[in-house]
């Protein structure tokens, strides 16, 4: 399992994305079969089929970069100690009609070509297929857990197989034999969580743009060598697999899962979409939240632009401007004493003008209260174009609906609403979906400097900026339609 510190938090606000606030990543994230995103020398790297790869300083804006010798298809990367092991396949894949292939491994101490530690050392072939057997040794994927290094590989041509490697050398353990664990999958990946081994793989057809039916599925097992079953108990060796993600909106054919463990209850995953219809239908890198329900992974979503109540999972109270409560004109006797024959008429919502008549014109404190369907409790949340972002998502602005009043971090680590959104880093927010489906809200930078903070409900009605605690509901928020 790969685990990143949230090192990008401090850097991210300094970066300017080259694209707008797309539903997908900024920059030129063109890739097919991306390897697990790996941090090296302060930058994120992923490699694809062919020699090149992508590099990013924040996980949001990606550019062509990185060097991976050896060519071939669908590499993967894992860091063990001070080595980055890289597995890749040469041959197979049905290209030129053949399925004879070799999975090779090499290592380097840095993925940054400018680093003095950069330089690949060949380990050799760790798995093969002879072109006749029902297997095709391509699409390797590492799992390093409990001191063991596992490698899955294979494609639509026959079985997915697992072998064990020596984590000290990257070579195959002596005497180890491949184990069949699935059929009819491609681009597999493994992860270990709570005593279960999860085998991800891609079903469907690739490489045909918006006609590609690629979709990512998963099974799990108590043993790395299986048997892997899906949620219905169907063995992956009999075609089973629980759906994790399929195409949606303007992107088609997700495939090639890769875990991104950001720590603190935030997990994401990388993949490619076969076709991004806003980018000429090209294959692109994508990153989405990873959720867990009843022991099964599922794809989450970056928050969609919209107007929401921001509700604390601690108290259920709503984030709001700390302003006077304005009553909706109403004779309480109507509720109980109206005669049956009296006409029924709708009562209008409280308007922004009614609610805001007494609001201070300058900065306004922010607190929390019972949600009363009032304008001072409703926030319009929008990705900010060209403001950069962080792993897999753009920065957002959070404004009281219908106004320019923006949620902002203060110099003393509190939150307030400023009169107008200026694009300042203290007004840019990172919104990460957590593995339980709720969200963590963090300022893009800490105005006072220092480590990263999150919006935390330190009381039922009191928010502040403090260190995120993944074991508590204090820092978990949900977005509800008003």
């Amino acid at each position, binding site marked *: 399992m790969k685990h990143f510190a949230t090192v990008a938090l401090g850097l991210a606000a300094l970066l300017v994305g080259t694209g707008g606030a797309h539903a997908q990543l900024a920059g030129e994230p063109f890739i097919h079969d991306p390897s697990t995103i790996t941090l090296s020398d302060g930058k994120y790297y992923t490699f694809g089929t062919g020699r090149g790869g992508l590099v990013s300083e924040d996980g949001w804006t990606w550019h062509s970069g990185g060097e991976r010798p050896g060519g071939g298809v669908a590499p993967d990367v894992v860091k063990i100690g001070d080595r980055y092991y890289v597995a890749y396949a040469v041959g197979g894949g*049905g290209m*030129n*009609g*053949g*399925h*004879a292939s070799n999975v090779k491994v090499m290592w380097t101490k840095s993925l940054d070509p400018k680093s003095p530690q950069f330089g690949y050392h060949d380990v050799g072939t760790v798995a093969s297929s*002879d*072109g*006749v057997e*029902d297997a095709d040794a391509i699409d390797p994927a590492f799992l390093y857990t409990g001191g063991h290094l596992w490698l899955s590989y294979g494609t*639509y*041509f*026959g079985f997915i197989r697992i072998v064990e490697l020596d984590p000290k050398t990257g070579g195959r353990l002596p005497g180890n034999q491949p184990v069949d664990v699935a*059929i*009819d999958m491609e681009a597999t990946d493994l992860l270990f969580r709570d005593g279960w081994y999860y085998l991800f793989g891609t*079903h*469907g*057809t690739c490489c*045909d743009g918006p*006609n590609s*039916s690629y979709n990512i599925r998963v099974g799990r097992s108590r043993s790395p060598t299986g048997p892997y079953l899906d949620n219905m108990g*169907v063995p992956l060796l*009999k*075609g*089973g*697999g629980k759906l994790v993600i399929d195409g949606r909106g303007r992107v088609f054919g997700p495939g090639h899962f890769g875990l991104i463990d950001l720590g603190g209850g935030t997990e994401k995953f990388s993949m490619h979409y076969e076709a991004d219809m806003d980018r000429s239908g090209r294959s692109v890198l994508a990153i989405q939240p990873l959720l867990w329900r009843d022991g099964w992974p599922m794809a989450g979503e970056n928050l969609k632009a919209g107007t929401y109540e921001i509700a604390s999972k601690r108290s259920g109270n709503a984030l709001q401007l700390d302003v006077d409560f304005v009553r909706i004109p109403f004779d309480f006797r109507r509720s109980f004493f109206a005669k049956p024959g009296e006409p029924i008429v709708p009562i209008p919502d409280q308007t922004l003008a009614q609610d805001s008549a007494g609001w201070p014109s300058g900065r306004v404190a922010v607190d929390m209260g019972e949600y009363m369907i009032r304008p001072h409790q409703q926030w319009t949340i929008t990705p900010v174009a060209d403001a950069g972002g962080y792993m897999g998502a753009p920065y957002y602005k959070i404004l009281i609906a219908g106004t320019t009043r923006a949620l902002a971090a203060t110099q003393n680590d509190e939150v307030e609403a400023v009169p107008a959104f200026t694009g300042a880093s203290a007004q840019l927010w990172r919104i990460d979906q957590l593995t339980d489906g709720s969200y963590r809200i963090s300022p893009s930078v800490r105005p006072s400097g220092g480590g990263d903070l999150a919006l935390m409900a330190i009381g039922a009605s009191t928010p502040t900026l403090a260190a995120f605690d993944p074991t508590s509901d204090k820092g978990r928020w949900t977005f509800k339609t008003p």
Partner: protein
Amino acid sequence: MVSRQRESFRIPLLAAIAAAALCGGGAATAQTTTPDRLAPYFQPVTAGAKTPDADGFLQRWLLLEPIVKPNRSNSGFTGSYVRTALTTKYFPGQMTAAPRDGDTVTVATPLRWHALDAVPFDVKLFNFAQGLGKPTYGVIFQAVTVVNSPRERRNVRLAVGSNAASMWWLNGKEAVTLSGDRRMVMDDVLSPRITLNKGRNVLRGAVINGPGLSDFCVRFVDEDGKPIRDITVNVK
């Protein structure tokens, strides 16, 4: 293309072995020899009827050598295309005759029926064709088996997974169709409720594939989705 080179070298010998093993009319016996390259996925049919495996999958079939039907991609396997391709009459008696092991039909070239027991739960058509040195891509496979039920069973369903698309008929009536570029998943598509007659039932299938592996798995399930195992299958 290593495998192709090997095939060209081995086909005559394999064909001779296959012919010796599978000709002679009626079901082959335990004494017949499975061509090396049909192992480990197929073996000669054994004497007597065969019960389904523990999950109810039917593993004894008459398989016809593949009919050539070029398709560069499986993406064109729409429902209408599949229906047209798989209901086209390629040879006399296609939908009615009960073939026997070793029978031949002619579809451009002579094609032979082979009685085989699948070793795994699925019938690996690609390996069947590859093992016999026949075309593996751009093909239609025909499969027939006889299901013997000790009693009439109503409201059962035929559960099929196939790579790629397929159509299936029970006692001459269409039971289920799987269109699209499918990968094989057990219980992928189930038929409407159908009846297994007491005694002999003829189950017939046709599978079409462009590039890639091809296989199918078939079983009957009851109203609770449980596999039906108190039946036998045979090829005569």
